[in-house]
């Protein structure tokens, strides 16, 4: 199992636990998986539910509550390096799943064949919940709990790759602007803050400016006439725009430039 938690107090590590069970409970009473014998800790304080590679933390209506990274929570989807605070105790959540895998086995689609129990939505109903799930027949409950789960552990996160990269790229770029040079709207500026900006008149001539990680591109979309960039017809091709390029489209001249 990839994820583990480290219990500590005042910077001293007390114990490390692997999240090997679907449901690990924390509390003062001895039946808990992680027993913290301190009066600030409720008998049944919190639970960590692990499904495949994801872990969720739940407050079991404790008297003094549960904090994650300084904020009080009732339920929380744990991310690696999260710090859970229960009274004076700190529990650090580590999931090395993200770092272990390489890009090569990144997000291979896998089939879940064994019945995977979803975590209990209510604290004390782990068993009933799982039964209900089997009854719905969504999972193939007949297949043996075999290698497929092990294989599933190889797949990796997107959290570190795809979406994150997508979100960070636009800000890394200087914002570009289109300024209209002729006609009644001369002097007007349009900031290209969206990924796609449509220029022209639908049904007559339309071109689209696409913002990509490595720059801005102009593409002809519809109409008999192609846009012209610096006196050259664009044709069917995609063209990367440079600072101070002049675009002509449907009789309108405009200048493309980067804001400094």
């Amino acid at each position, binding site marked *: 199992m990839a994820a583990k938690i480290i219990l500590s107090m005042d910077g001293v590590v007390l114990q490390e636990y692997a999240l090997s069970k679907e449901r690990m409970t924390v509390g003062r009473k001895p039946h808990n998986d992680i027993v913290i014998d301190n009066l600030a800790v409720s008998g049944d304080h919190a639970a960590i539910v692990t499904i495949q590679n994801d872990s969720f933390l739940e407050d079991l209506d404790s008297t003094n509550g549960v904090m994650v990274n300084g904020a009080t929570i009732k339920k929380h989807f744990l991310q690696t390096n999260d710090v859970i605070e229960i009274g004076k105790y700190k529990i650090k959540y580590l999931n090395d799943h993200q770092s272990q895998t390489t890009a090569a086995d990144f997000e291979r*689609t896998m*089939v879940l064949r064994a019945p995977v129990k979803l975590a209990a939505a209510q604290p004390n109903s782990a068993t009933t919940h799982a039964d209900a799930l089997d009854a719905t027949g969504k999972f193939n409950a007949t297949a043996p709990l075999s290698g497929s789960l092990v294989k599933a552990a190889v797949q990796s996160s997107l959290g570190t790759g795809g979406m994150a990269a997508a979100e960070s790229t636009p800000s890394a770029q200087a914002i570009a602007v289109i300024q209209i040079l002729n006609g009644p709207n001369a002097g007007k500026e349009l900031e290209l803050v969206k990924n796609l900006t449509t220029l022209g008149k639908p049904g007559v001539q339309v071109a689209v400016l696409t913002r990509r990680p490595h720059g801005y591109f102009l593409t002809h979309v519809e109409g008999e006439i192609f846009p012209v960039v610096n006196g050259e017809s664009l044709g069917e091709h995609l063209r990367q725009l440079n600072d101070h390029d002049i675009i002509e489209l449907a009789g309108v001249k405009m200048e493309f430039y980067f804001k400094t």
Partner: protein
Amino acid sequence: MEIKEALEMVSQTHPGKVRSHNEDSVACVASCGLVVLTDGMGGYNAGEVASGIAVSVVASEIKQYLELARADDKDVASGEDMAVVLLRNNVRKANLSIYNAAQSQPQYAGMGTTLVSGLFYDNRVAVAHVGDSRMYRLRGEIFETITRDHSLLQEQLDSGMISQADARVSLNRNLVTRAVGIDENVEVEVHVHEVQRGDIYLFCSDGLNDMVEDDDIADIVRTFKSNMPLMATQLIQAANDNGGRDNVSVILVKVKSNFAATSHLYAKILAWFKN
């Protein structure tokens, strides 16, 4: 209006920027309004084999059947539209072909594929899917997912365990709960939707929607409405610009006009004259 003229179909598939193999397969049969998209899985080249079998079985069998019969006929036994029965039966047939191949050849053991397929007929579309390949629809300004993934993440979302925002960072994104070819039987989800003029349907593998946010997909589809081949190129480019970690495939279908089925009597008379 003949279905062939009523619909504009475009497809594109790309291995992405990380993988050397393309395990996705796509097919468009314009003459009978059918599209099939699959995303294979399994070691070595087994994923390609599985997705290839699924596409060719579903596409060729349905095409052959529709040369002799009509998708809007009612099935005698169940009372369902023939289109629904055709899709369901042929996905099952593909399932068995893949399963048998995997059983008989050790290098193909455990291979499988997700699938989404649409059959357009009589101003409707029957959509079959297994796994996490999707169909989206743009109608007017509204762009939405029509199919519901058979995946662990979707079940977690449905049960309220995880929010949409959390789902984006979940490590369980690519665990599917159903696939074609991994068992003797497969449960195929088929629904019939009414179709309107101007609708645009997007069928895609998870290589698109895992890499590109739904809002950005919607933006591209709206912006490039008038140029379908360019829309396909842009969608694939967006997935690759964001990392292209998986194979990415898209099939786009635009409804240019109505395609209500002609009545049986009329069709029969027409056929009689032709003979």
